[in-house]
C-alpha cells in the first residue's frame, strides 16, 4: 500500500515509533480495536506481513473493513495462542486426506479452538483467514468443515450446511448415472 507522502515529518516519527512496537493494532469493520503480536501476525498472515514490511500499519488501528469484530477477535486470539504454543513434532500426515501436500494435523488446541465456534463464526473465520492470507488457519478451518461432511450422505450434508438442492429430478438421475461408481457405497 502506498503511504500518503503529504503528511510530513510527524508521519515519519510516528512510523518509527510504530516500527519499535512489538504489537500491531487492528480495527474491525465495526470499529473495535485489537492488539496482536507483530511477530505472530507477520508469520501467520501474508497480508499483515506485507503491511508491516511496507509500513502501512496504522498506529491508531489498521482498518480491516472486511472483517467483523467477532471474526477479528478470533483471528487475534488464534495468532496470540499460536505465538505461545510449542509446535508438536512430526504430526505431518498424508493419511488424513488424499491431498499430497503435507498437511500437519491440527494441534489439540487448534481443534478445540475451531470446535467451540458456532456455524456462522466458523465461516466468518474462514473468510477472514482467506482475506488475510493465513494459510495455516485456512487449513485448520477447512479441515473442520470437511470433518462436518465426512461419512454423511449428500442429503445429510445439505441439511448441515443448508444447501438448497436446485437440481431437477432428471438432472440428479443424470449425475448419478454419470458418476455411478462414486456412489457405490450408498
Amino acid at each position, binding site marked *: 500500500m502506498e503511504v500518503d507522502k503529504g503528511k510530513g515529518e510527524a508521519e515519519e516519527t510516528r512510523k518509527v515509533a510504530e516500527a519499535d512496537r512489538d504489537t500491531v493494532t487492528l480495527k474491525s469493520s465495526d470499529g473495535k480495536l485489537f492488539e496482536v503480536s507483530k511477530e505472530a501476525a507477520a508469520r501467520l498472515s501474508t497480508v499483515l506481513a506485507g503491511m508491516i514490511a511496507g509500513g502501512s500499519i496504522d498506529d491508531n488501528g489498521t482498518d480491516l473493513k472486511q472483517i467483523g469484530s467477532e471474526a477479528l477477535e478470533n483471528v487475534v486470539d488464534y495468532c496470540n495462542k499460536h505465538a505461545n504454543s510449542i509446535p508438536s513434532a512430526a504430526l505431518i500426515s498424508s493419511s*488424513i*486426506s*488424499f*491431498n*499430497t*501436500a503435507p*498437511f500437519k494435523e491440527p494441534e489439540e488446541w487448534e481443534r478445540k479452538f475451531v470446535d467451540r465456534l*458456532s*456455524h*456462522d463464526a466458523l*465461516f466468518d473465520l*474462514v*473468510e477472514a483467514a*482467506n482475506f488475510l492470507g493465513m494459510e495455516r488457519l*485456512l*487449513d485448520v478451518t*477447512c*479441515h473442520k*468443515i*470437511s*470433518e*462436518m*461432511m*465426512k*461419512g*454423511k*450422505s*449428500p442429503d*445429510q*450434508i*445439505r*441439511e*448441515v*450446511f*443448508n*444447501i*438448497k*438442492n*436446485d*437440481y431437477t429430478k432428471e438432472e*440428479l438421475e443424470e*449425475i*448419478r448415472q*454419470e*458418476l*455411478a*461408481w*462414486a*456412489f*457405490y457405497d450408498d
Partner: protein
Amino acid sequence: MAQRGGELAAKAAKPSGDAAGEDRLSALPDDLLVLILLHLDDTAEAIRTSYFSRRWRRVWTLLPVLRFDLLPEVNGVAIRRILDAPEEAAPLRWISVTTLDAGPESAAAWLPVAARRLSGELNYHNLRVKMNDRDDEDLQLPCFEKATTIKLDIGFLGLALPPHGIFGRLTELFLWRVRFRSPSDLGGVVSSPRCPCLKKLEVSNSRGLQDLSIHSESLVRLKLEVVRGLRHLTIMAPILQKLGVVRCILAHDSTESVANISAPQLVDLDWKDFYDPQYVHLGDFEELQQVAPFYFVAYGPPDIRDKNQYCLSLLQRFQALYCLHLTLMYRQVSAHPSVVEYCSCKLQFATS
C-alpha cells in the same frame, strides 16, 4: 447408519442458531471449496459433492489431485471420463491409481488423457494376486510431455514405450514389476534427447530388458535391481553420482563385455552383481567415496562361495575408499538337512 448420520447432522446444524437457513458453504469462493474437498478422504467423496446443487456440479473438476484406490466399481473407462470431463479443468498436479489384477486395457483407457493433462506426478500401481503369466497385449505408455515424475508398478504387465515424443519435464522415472518386450528401447527413451531433465531412474523387479544403453547429461541417480536377463549395460552419464546395479547380470554366460560404465562424478557405487574386469568395464571414478560390493559368503560349502570372486575383484580395483559396505553371509547349520538358511552380517568401514 442413516439414522446415526441424521442425528449428527441435526447436532452440527443446531449450534448455529443464527444461521437462519443461510448457505455459507456454497457462498465460499471456488479455491476454498477445493481446499475443503482436499481434506476429504478420497476423490470419490469429493466427486459426490457434485450431487449437492448446481453450484457444486463442477467444483470437483478443479481438484489438482486425483486418487483412485481399489474402488470396487471403478474401471479404466470411468477414470478416463473423470479426467476427460472438464474443459476448464485445473492443471492436474498429481494422479494416483491403484488396481487389482487389471489387464492392460484398464490403464490404456485413461493413460492418454492423463498424459495430456498431467503436469506433476503419476502413480500407477497394479497389484497382482493371480500370478498366472497371461499373454496380454502390452500396455502402451504414451509420452508425458509435462509430467515431472512417473511411478509405474504394473504387476508384470507388458510395457511398450512410446516410439516418439519428448518427456520434456520428467525428472524422476520409476519402473517396478514391468515386463519389457524385447527389443525394448528403454535406453533411447531415458537418454538425453528424449528425457533432457531426467535426474533419477529406477528399474526393479523387471523382466525382458536385455540391452540397456543410457547416454544422459542430466542423470544423477540410477538404480537397477533384479532386472532379470540384462545382458548388456552401457551407461554414459557425466554427472551421475549414485549407481546401484543389484542382481541384474548375474546370469552372465557370454564372452563379450557386458557392462561399460562411464560416470566420472560417481560418489556412491552399489555393485552387487557379476564382476569380472574382463567383461565389466568401469571407468575412472575419481570422486568415489562409497562402495558396496556383492555379498561375501564367509561360511558355507565351496559351490556357493564361487561368487565371492565378484566381491574380491571389485575391491581390488580401489586403492582407498572413504566407506565400504560389506555384507557377509553365513550358512547356518540346521538340524534338518533340507533347510538351508543364511544369516547375513553387514559391516561398514569408514575412514575420516
